[in-house]
Every structure is written in structure tokens, then in C-alpha cells.
């Protein structure tokens, strides 16, 4: 249904995505994990045809078999909302504060689907019901500031679902929310994907949220896919040094015996470099604990692992 083949996005500052492969079948749920600067949001924008004007795309992106790599805004507009829709991290920014949320949700229904006011109202009510907003009829008449963070995110999901998209791209949909609310939003997205047979691209820096939301995992670092595979298997047995580092660095409860020093966390040294300073070879070079002299200059090819693929020179020798 959606296929990115060796998709690259070049910005004036550097290459934000370098040869990303991604395919989505109907109803499939894929997680994209990465830190800031990994290119995960750029991937989401590329899938929506919303990359900045200064960006240059190469490779190939097809949607329903149509090549969208060089598609014009007009072509994208015909597909957005109906075939592929997106939700963002900050729901307040995506809702017009001066309009009732019902009006915002009804707009695509009236403009895109040509429904009458009454039809659109009934449809919006059904959508609010579907995303689990309490007292949906009252919610429709409220303004964004009258809703809680979780309710706003639900309203935005309803808006994204308005035209029955086949694919939903969720970019950090839970980051601004409390843990309990975030877990419920994740569960909602999974339920909607199952009920509607809608594919889900769940973009997050949070491994735990991705594990809960998706079936397949794509780990991005510096614009490269460094590892991919079935989500549970990759998290249980990561093969790329970056994936391993990310999982090991997660804080965990560490009881301290009286007077004893507290165990330290397994930090990854350094930080994600800015786009312009990324190494030409393996992007993780400079921070990698098992780095070889050739790593910074030579780009590793993806190699099969027991549960997918990983791009690391050491895998080529069958080392880790």
C-alpha cells in the first residue's frame, strides 16, 4: 500500500534521511524510534508529502502503487486525509483555539466529503464516540482549551479519522501526555488500527510506547535505518550497537544498600551530532562502543539478523 525505497531527504544543512526503506500493508502497525536529529519526524513528513520546500527527495515513494516521489502539492492534497492522515505531538497547536472542536472536525467532512451540516454533525458525533471521548455531544460544542490534554489528542485523532484514511501517521502522539493518559492513547490507536484495518506508523523516542503500539520496529539514527525487525524480538535481542545502547541506557529501579553507591546507568557517550557534522560512513561512529577505524568512512550495508536487518560493519563479519 505504501512503499518507500531508498528514500533520501536532503536539507541545506545535510542529509536528514539516507536511503530509508519502509513498506506498509493494510492494517499493519510499524514503530519508528529515534532521538532528536534521527530523521524520524522528517520520515513522517515525507510520507505525507509535507517536507519543507528546501528539501530534496530522492529514491522512491509510492502510495497505492502511484509514484509520489515528485508529486505536486495538488496530487498530495487529493490523497491526504482520505488515504493518509497525521497526528502530532502537541494537540493544542493543531486545533484552532477560536473554533469549537466540533466545527474543526466537521470541516473536512463537509469540504472533502461534501456532507451536509447535519450529516457532518452526526458523523463527528460518531467519531468522538469511536475515540472514546466522554459525553461526545457536549465535547463537540467545546473549545480546545476546555478539553484536557488527553481529550485534545483524542479529538485530533477523530479529526485525522474523519475521511477514513487507510494509513495514520502518529508523530510523538503521547510525548506531551502523562503516563496513564499516554498508555490509554496508545491502546486507542491500536484498537482503531484493528477495528478499521488502518495501517499505523507510530513515531516516538519512547521504546516502551512503541513496543506497546506496534508489531514491527524501525530504529533510526542520523537519518539511517540502523535496525529493523519484529518489535518484541528486536527489543529482547538487539543486534545494532545503537539499539543495544538505547535499551541499556533506559533508567530502571536500582535499590541501594545502606551506604553503598548506587549503580550507574549504561549511558551512550556524546550526543547526536548536528546534521552537518554526521560522519559520512556509519552515522553512529564517534559514539559507538565497538567502533573500528573504518566505520566513520565506510557506510555499512543492512545485513540480515535473526529477526530482521541491522546495518553495522561488525555484523558483516558475523561478530556480535
Amino acid at each position, binding site marked *: 500500500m505504501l512503499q518507500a525505497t531508498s528514500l533520501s531527504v536532503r536539507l541545506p544543512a545535510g542529509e536528514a534521511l539516507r536511503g530509508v526503506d519502509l513498506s506498509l500493508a493494510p492494517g499493519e502497525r510499524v514503530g519508528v524510534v529515534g*532521538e*532528536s536529529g534521527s530523521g524520524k519526524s522528517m520520515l513522517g513528513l515525507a510520507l505525507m508529502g509535507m517536507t519543507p520546500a528546501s528539501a530534496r527527495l530522492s529514491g522512491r515513494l509510492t502510495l497505492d502503487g502511484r509514484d509520489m516521489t515528485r508529486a505536486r502539492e495538488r496530487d498530495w492534497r487529493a490523497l491526504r486525509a482520505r488515504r493518509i492522515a497525521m497526528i502530532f505531538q502537541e494537540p493544542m497547536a493543531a486545533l484552532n483555539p477560536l473554533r469549537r472542536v466540533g466545527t474543526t472536525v466537521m470541516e473536512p467532512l463537509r469540504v472533502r466529503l461534501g456532507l451536509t451540516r447535519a450529516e457532518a454533525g452526526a458523523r463527528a458525533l460518531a467519531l468522538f464516540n469511536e475515540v472514546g471521548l466522554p459525553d461526545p455531544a457536549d465535547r463537540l460544542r467545546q473549545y480546545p482549551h476546555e478539553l484536557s*490534554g488527553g481529550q485534545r489528542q483524542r479529538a485530533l485523532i477523530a479529526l485525522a479519522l474523519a475521511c477514513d484514511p487507510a494509513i495514520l501517521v502518529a508523530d510523538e502522539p503521547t510525548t506531551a501526555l*502523562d*503516563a*496513564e*493518559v*499516554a*498508555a490509554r492513547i*496508545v491502546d486507542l490507536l491500536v484498537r482503531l488500527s484493528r477495528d478499521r484495518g488502518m495501517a499505523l506508523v507510530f513515531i516516538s*523516542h*519512547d*521504546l*516502551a*510506547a512503541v*513496543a*506497546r503500539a506496534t508489531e514491527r520496529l524501525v530504529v533510526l539514527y542520523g537519518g539511517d535505518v540502523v535496525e529493523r525487525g519484529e518489535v518484541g524480538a528486536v527489543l529482547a535481542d538487539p543486534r545494532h550497537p545503537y539499539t543495544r*545502547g*538505547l535499551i541499556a*541506557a*533506559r*533508567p*530502571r*529501579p*536500582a*535499590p*541501594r544498600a*545502606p*551506604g553503598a*553507591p*548506587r549503580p*550507574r*546507568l*549504561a*549511558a*551512550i*557517550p556524546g*550526543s*547526536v551530532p548536528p546534521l552537518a557534522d554526521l560522519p559520512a560512513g556509519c552515522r553512529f561512529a564517534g*559514539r559507538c562502543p565497538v567502533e573500528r577505524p573504518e566505520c566513520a568512512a565506510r557506510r555499512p550495508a543492512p545485513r540480515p539478523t535473526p529477526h530482521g536487518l541491522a546495518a553495522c560493519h561488525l555484523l558483516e563479519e558475523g561478530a556480535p
Partner: protein
Amino acid sequence: MSADRSAPLLEAQGLRRVYRLPRRALFAAAPRHVALAGADFALHPGETLGVVGESGSGKSTLARLCMGFERPDAGVVRLFGQDLSRLSRGALAALRPRFQMVFQDPWGSLDPRRRVGWSVAEPLLAQGVDRAGRRRRVDEALRQVGLAPADAARWPHEFSGGQRQRLAIARAIVTRPALLVADEPVSALDVSVQAQVLNLLMDLQEELGLAMLFISHDLAVVGAVCDRLLVMRRGEVVESGPAARVLSAPETPYAAALLRAAL
């Protein structure tokens, strides 16, 4: 824990803070928001006390009261045995070097138009430390947070997010405080850098014997760095105890629900 037998460094009793919200109608009473509805706790020297709860639970209000940025509507904050609300402005300023704060956003602690050495040294100005002394203490603080003395001459924007948080921590420890209040100090950092900053805080705590009030919504983070936990909900402490116990066998349904939700 041996620390428990010593006198508390920071102690709160019946802390209450009510904010008045904007009036909705001319003759209606202004609605109130009870941010803290009576919180009690004690923090001993060298100990890390974690405060967890969702947004709106009152944890940041608690931090502001403990820092003396605001006064409670009822209750007492006792720091080094002194009631913060009874201290004069001058007395509070004199005490300030001994308790410092680290915020979620390090930009709040760094002046973008000044070299970072100036921002790190600023808390020493109020103390009247001379130029050479400031220089020495800034060098020392930068080394303690894993940066180099030469970094003092650079500008805040030249640093990464994790390094800026290190600078904010350097500024907080430059006065050699006994207490650090950290409000979501790693929430804005990337996962790979978060662990570095948490390790740094643990290093500093052991080296300097710091006590820490560590506020976070992230149970995994508080579990990794805290000795004891306070679980807050709607302005009240609903559960408290050793971190390992609260995280493995919560006694209240709310703490259990928080744990289940921690993905």
C-alpha cells in the same frame, strides 16, 4: 539508612498552597485551585527524595515552596532548621548558596548573550566572591560536570542539549550547596543523553554529599536515582516510602495505577 537518624535538612509540614484563578463573573467569587492540600515530608543530608505524580499533582508547586520562591498559605518549610516563611529577604538571600535548583529547561539558567562562564559564576556574585575566586570555582564546577574549564569562554548555543543541562548543573553546584532541588532535570533530553545526566547527578551526590529533591513524572527515572519516593495526587501525598518498596509493592491503588501506566 544511616542518614535517617540525622536531623532533616529540609522538612515540610502541612504545606498548603491555593492559587486564585481569574474571576469568571463580576460578582462571583474567584475560583480557586488547590495546588497543595497539606504535604508533609523530610529530606535528610545525602539523601535523594523523589516526587512523582502526573501534571497538576502539585509537585512543581512543592519545589517552588521549598526554594522559597513562593510562600505557603499554610504549613511550614524548614530548611537547615529555619522556617523559610519567617526569613527576611536578606536572610533568605544569605541562605541561597546552600540550596540551589536545576530546571527542566537549561535555557532558564543560561543567558544566551553571555559566555557560559559568566552564567555559571553568577550565583557567586551575590556571595561577594572575588574575580580570582570565581574563576577557580567555575573551573572546578565545570570539571565536576564533565566539561573543561576552557568551555567557560564559549556561548550557550555552541553546546548540545545535554551539555547545556550540565552547565545548568554546574551553575547550581558552584556555590557548593547542601541541597539540590531538581525539577524534571532530564525530561527534555534524548534517551541516550538522559542516562549521562542521571549518572552525573549520582556522581555529584556521592562526591559532594548533596541531598536532592528530585521531581519527575517518570517512574523509571526516579527508581534509578532516588532513595525514597513521595507519590502525589491532586496536591496530596498519597504514598511515601523507600523507592524500591513503592515501585515493587505499592500500597495505594493510585500508586499501583501509576506503575501500571508506566509503559
